[in-house]
C-alpha cells in the first residue's frame, strides 16, 4: 500500500493517579491510508476518545503518553512537534470533531466568529473572503448561511454538531477525526452528511478517523474498522469482513447485541 497518512505505533496512554495509574490505551498500532475512512469501535470507556485526543495533540494531564509510543502523520512524529509547528498542525493537518461537539462552540460568540477565529489564525486576512468560505462550508452541512450571525444556543443540538463539522472542513485538513459526530442527528441528516463527507474525501483526498457506537453505520461508511476492548485493539479488518466474518469473540458479541428495527419491543 502507499505510505500511510497516519501511522500509530505502540501507543500506550495512562491516566496517572495518586494511588495508581489507569492504563486507558494499551499498545495500540494501526495505519490510515490517504483518503481512507478508518473506524474505531468498542465499549464505552475502552479508550477511543483518549486515542483521538492524543493524535490531535490535545491530551492533557493526567493523561500520560508512554515513551515507546509513536504517532506519525505524513512521516512526522506528532508527539515531537514544537509549539509553533503545532499551531500549523491543528485544523490544517488534523481537525477534530469532539464527542461533545454540540457543546464545544463558544456560547458568547456568533457562529460566524467561531469560523473567523480559525481562518484568521491560519492566514486568511480578507474578511469577505473568509465569509465566502464560511458560507460554502455551512452549505456543505445544510445549514443556511443566513444564520451565521446567530449564537450557538439558537440552534438545536444536531445543528450545532453540523456547524462544528463545517469548521473542521474550513481549512481542508489531511485528517479529520470524528468522535461520534452524528449522535445528535436524525438518521436522514446523518446519512446525508456522511454521504457528503464520503464524496468530499474522494474529491479532496482527506482521511477520516471515525468513532461511533453504531456498528451498522460504521460498516456503511468505513473502509476498515478496528475493534477495541479495554484499551487494546483486538481486531482490525475490512469493514465487510468485520460484518460478515468477524474473528474475535468480542466483535461477534457486539453484533449480537444489535437491536433490530423490525423485532418486537422488550416490554
Amino acid at each position: 500500500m502507499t505510505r500511510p497518512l497516519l501511522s500509530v505505533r505502540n501507543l500506550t496512554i495512562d491516566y496517572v493517579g495518586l494511588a495508581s495509574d489507569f492504563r486507558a490505551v494499551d499498545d495500540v498500532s494501526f495505519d490510515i491510508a490517504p483518503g481512507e475512512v478508518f473506524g474505531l469501535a468498542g465499549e464505552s470507556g475502552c479508550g477511543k476518545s483518549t486515542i483521538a485526543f492524543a493524535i490531535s495533540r490535545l491530551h492533557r494531564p493526567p493523561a500520560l503518553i508512554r515513551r515507546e509510543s509513536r504517532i506519525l502523520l505524513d512521516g512526522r512524529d506528532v508527539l515531537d512537534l514544537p509549539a509553533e509547528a503545532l499551531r500549523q498542525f491543528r485544523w490544517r493537518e488534523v481537525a477534530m470533531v469532539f464527542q461533545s461537539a454540540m457543546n464545544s462552540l463558544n456560547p458568547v460568540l456568533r457562529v460566524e466568529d467561531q469560523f473567523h477565529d480559525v481562518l484568521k489564525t491560519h492566514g486568511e486576512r480578507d474578511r469577505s473572503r473568509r465569509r465566502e468560505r464560511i458560507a460554502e462550508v455551512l452549505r456543505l452541512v445544510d445549514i443556511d448561511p443566513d444564520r451565521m450571525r446567530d449564537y450557538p444556543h439558537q440552534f438545536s443540538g444536531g445543528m450545532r454538531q453540523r456547524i462544528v463539522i463545517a469548521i473542521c472542513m474550513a481549512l481542508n485538513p489531511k485528517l479529520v477525526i470524528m468522535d461520534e459526530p452524528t449522535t445528535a442527528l436524525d438518521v436522514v441528516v446523518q446519512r446525508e452528511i456522511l454521504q457528503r463527507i464520503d464524496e468530499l474525501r474522494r474529491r479532496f483526498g482527506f482521511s477520516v478517523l471515525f468513532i461511533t457506537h453504531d456498528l451498522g453505520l460504521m460498516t456503511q461508511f468505513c473502509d476498515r474498522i478496528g475493534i477495541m476492548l479495554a484499551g487494546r485493539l483486538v481486531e482490525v479488518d475490512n469493514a465487510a469482513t468485520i460484518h460478515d466474518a468477524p474473528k474475535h469473540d468480542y466483535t461477534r458479541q457486539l453484533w449480537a447485541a444489535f437491536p433490530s428495527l423490525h423485532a418486537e419491543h422488550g416490554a
Partner: protein
Amino acid sequence: MTALLALDDVTKTFGYGDAMIHAARGVSFELKAGRALAVVGESGSGKTTCARLVMRDYAPDGGKLVFRGKPMGDRTDLVAYRRAVQMIFQDPFASLNPAHNIRHHLRRPLRLHRPELKGAAIDAEVLELLRLVQLDPERLVDRHPFELSGGQRQRINIARALAVRPEVLVADEPTSMLDVSVRLGVLNLLNAMKQEMRLGLLYITHDIATARYVAEDIAVMYAGQILEWGATASVIDRPAHPYTRLLLSAVPDPQIRFADPAGRLDPDAAAAVRQAAAVPTREVREVGPNHFVRALPG
C-alpha cells in the same frame, strides 16, 4: 387509562418576525403510567423543546400542560412537580458540574427527594445506583465528571434521574454514547422501571430500533409538528407519511455501503419530502387502530 401527563395543543416559538422559529406547533401527546412514548424526528424539529415544555423550563405560548388531570400554570405545585418529573439531558458533557465528584452528584438528589434515607443508607444507595447503570462504583464514585468517558457521563445522568424515583422520566437521547451491550442494559432498566414502578417515560431518540424496544407508542416530529403517531409497531411497519418512510429508509443498515451508488440516499428526493412535510396542517387521518397521520398537502 387516564394520562399521567399531557401536552394539549401546545405552541412555542422563538424569535420575532421573519426570523421566528416555530419549535412546537399544536403539539399534543399523553404520557401514561407504565408506558413509554418515543419521540423521533428531524434534528431541529422541536423534540428537546417539547421536553423542556414538559419540564416547565419554558412556558407554552399557547395550549397547556396537564399533570394528573390538573392544568399547570406558571408556578402551580412547582416543587412537587420537580420531584415527580425528572429529565436526562441530551448533552452529558454540559449537565454535570465539573467542581463536584460523582458521589456528590448522586447524593444531592437523594438528600433532597428521598428523606427516608439517612447516613450510611444514602451512600449505599449511591453505589447501588451506579451498579444499576453498569458502572463500577469503587472505581468511579470519587472521580470528577471530566475524568469519565462520554458514555460513563451519560450513565451518571441516568443514575441521577433515577435516584429521585420519578413518576415521569423525560429521557433526551439517553443512550446515544453507549455501546450496544450497555445500551441494551439501560433500555432493559427503563423497561423494568416502567413495569415495576409504573414510570411514565418520554423517550426522545434518533435510534428508531431502540424506540421500538422501549416504547409502546411513537410520535414522528418534523418542523414543530407531530406528523404521524400511534402504536410503535404499526408506525414502523406501516409508515403512512412520506417523511416517516424517509426516516425509516435511512436507518443504518450494514448491507448498504455509502460507496455503492445503488444504496445512496437521494438528497434531492429527501429535500422534496421535507418541503412537503414542512407545510403546517391540522387535518388528521386515522390509518389503523391507534395509528394517525397528518393529512398531506394536495
